């Protein structure tokens, strides 16, 4: 049952403290100190989540992230330099699900890791739980209810234009073709489709998808919407499924199916 995490960090002290803390929290931790050894470690035993430092000697974190995305949809959390937009955006564009800025307090890192791991398991219950996109509060991600407490229910299969979204099977299909989405992308699409016809603000999406509103920022949403569009839209430059609502956020339309 222990979730396994791959931690890629070049500074030995930080690597060690992350290992200590995560093992304390009950995770199995595999360490790698640079890009190539991270890719080897990933291939030998795929983890449930990758914690990836941006500043790595040789192959940097962005490249490692892109390489991992070629072979896997695993949740990836980046460790980036503080408040540097280029790093954050490049990290997200290279396929990361979330980021934590250095230096970080350990509880914050743990919250992000838990939040990323929980995203997949929350999918199953979200459809029935009917979480309404309310005012995002200061609720920390760690305080959100775990999947075990949510009432078990069979979430309904949603359709969005030509897409069929099945939360139980965790799949998005266009006709018979399965579209590979990361858990975050899937969750984003699912929430937008579940609230079809309703514009969701970036803050609402942060709370619904990432499980926190204030710790994150709107770039998380924007970059993930771009990545999602690149996968599901016929022409990502002129999206027809996930639409931008200027000054507010995003929405999907209810599609009449004949």
């Amino acid at each position, binding site marked *: 049952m222990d979730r396994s995490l791959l931690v890629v960090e070049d*500074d030995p*002290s*930080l690597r060690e*403290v*992350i290992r*200590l*803390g995560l093992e*304390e929290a009950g995770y199995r931790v595999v360490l790698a100190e640079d890009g190539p050894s991270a890719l080897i470690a990933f291939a030998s035993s795929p983890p449930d989540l990758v914690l990836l430092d941006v500043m790595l000697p040789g192959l940097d974190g962005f490249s490692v992230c892109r390489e991992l995305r070629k072979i896997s949809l695993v949740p990836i959390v980046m460790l980036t*330099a*503080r*408040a*540097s*937009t*280029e790093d954050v955006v490049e990290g997200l564009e290279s396929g990361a699900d979330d980021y934590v800025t*250095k*230096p*970080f*307090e*350990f*509880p914050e*890192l743990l919250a992000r890791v838990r939040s990323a791991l929980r995203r997949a398991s929350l999918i199953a219950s979200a459809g029935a739980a009917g979480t309404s996109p309310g*005012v*995002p*509060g*200061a609720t920390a991600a760690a305080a959100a209810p775990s999947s075990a407490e949510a009432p078990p229910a069979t979430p309904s299969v949603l359709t969005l234009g030509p897409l069929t979204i099945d939360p139980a099977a965790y799949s998005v299909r266009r006709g018979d073709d399965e579209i590979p989405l990361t858990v975050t992308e899937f969750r984003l699409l699912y929430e937008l489709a579940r609230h079809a016809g309703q514009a969701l*603000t970036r*803050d609402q999406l942060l709370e619904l998808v990432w499980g926190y509103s*204030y710790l994150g*920022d*709107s*770039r998380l949403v924007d970059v993930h919407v771009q990545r999602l569009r690149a996968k599901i839209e016929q022409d990502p430059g002129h999206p027809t499924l996930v639409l931008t609502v200027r*000054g*507010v956020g995003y929405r999907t339309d209810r599609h009449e199916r004949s």
Partner: protein
Amino acid sequence: MAGPAPRHQSAARRSLARRVAFIFVAAVVITALALALSAYFISKAAQDQEALDKALTQSRFNLFLADSMLPEAPDETDYERLVDAFQIRGEFATLIDVGDGSPYVSGFNVTRELITAELASKVAEGRIGYQTIQVSGRQTLVVGGPVRSGEVTAYFFYPQDARLAGLATLRNILLIAGAILTVLGAIAGYLLAKRLLRPVRQASKAAVQMSQGDLDIRLPAGSDEFGVLAASFNRMAENLQAKMLDLEAGQARERRFVADVTHELRTPVSALVGEASLLRSKLESDPSVCAPEVARLVGMVNTDIGRLRQLVDDLLEISRLDAQAADTVLEPVQLRPFLAQLVQVRGWSDSVQLAVHDPEQPVQDDTTAPLAARAGLIVRADRRRLERIIVNLVENALKHGAAPVAIDAREAPGHDTQRDAQRGLIHIGVTDSGSGIAVEHLPHVFDRFYKADPSRSSSRGSGLGLAIARENARLLGGDIVAMNVPGGGARFVLTLPAADS
């Protein structure tokens, strides 16, 4: 603020050009006037002399003719014949006074009364005299002389008006020529002044550009007097530029060093922050792990590492701002929900009051306005940087001032007249309830590591908070000013451009 200085310069330059042109015109006018007047008067004197000579010659001939024509004892008929003979000449009138009160006259209508006593007495002495008089409005030269050793006198009247009309024409021609010359002189003077002042203009323009920070400006070299000025100016510019480059290079080295040091510090600080926080959370979950004094030490280590982290964070941020490597994502930010959320998330609800004065809406002091409820005041800013500014200002107010702290936001007054030309501005004020900032410290509160009281411990912040806030404000196209409010309390006002609506 660059407006008034060049305008002043150009006014001075214009007046200089005007002065040169004026002097030139004055010189032209005086010269033309002198030329015209001397030409006129020399010409007039010559003509007068010539006319007089001609009249005298004619008169002498006439007198000689009269002497020879009149018999020993001339009677009335003789005189009549004589004046008739003179009339044939036609150019003058004749008056022969025989002393009986009824003179003989020919030519145009002249009378004995026209002859002045002065002239008559001269003639009575047996000499030839002349005088200029007016005969029915015409200027006339009258020449008188004795006939027959003085018992009879003859006067000849030569009208001068035709000649004077010629002189008047000459005068008019000279006047017109003078006027034309003056206009031409003015134009030439203006062009000359402009041309003469071109190097001055260039130099003044270059000086203005230089004062505005453009050290690349150079004056064209020349071999005249301005060439010397230009060469000196260019040398000065080069020296200044070299010095500035030196200075900038030094500053850049210094900043680079700080940035490098900070960067190197970051990795161990990151590890320290992780380790200390892990240690603390372990202790929190199980206090029996170690003795209470060790727990206290762990708390102190955490606090100090927190300060170290803050310092490194602030140094990194200010290095990035200095290197102009800071990036911004400008977007419209609704102030009311933004500030309300900030106050809530930061846990300031007890110590910070919020008053956002949305246009055309009653003042509300609530901290729980729902997101996107109303448009209200909207600034154009980078959310993260705006948050940084407000957080730094409020933290400064809480640390150095006293709670409660008031945040207010309103449209900047006094821009209505320029609303079309200039996008509106929004003022966000952060006011504390402390005792204010001493006047001598007020200009320095944004200085890096400035300590209002050197003896006071620096344990309450990195000393960079306000500097970072102001750099960020400037990055967003705004600024921050510090002031004291009446009744105590420091107030910081952040000005930001309003979003286009």
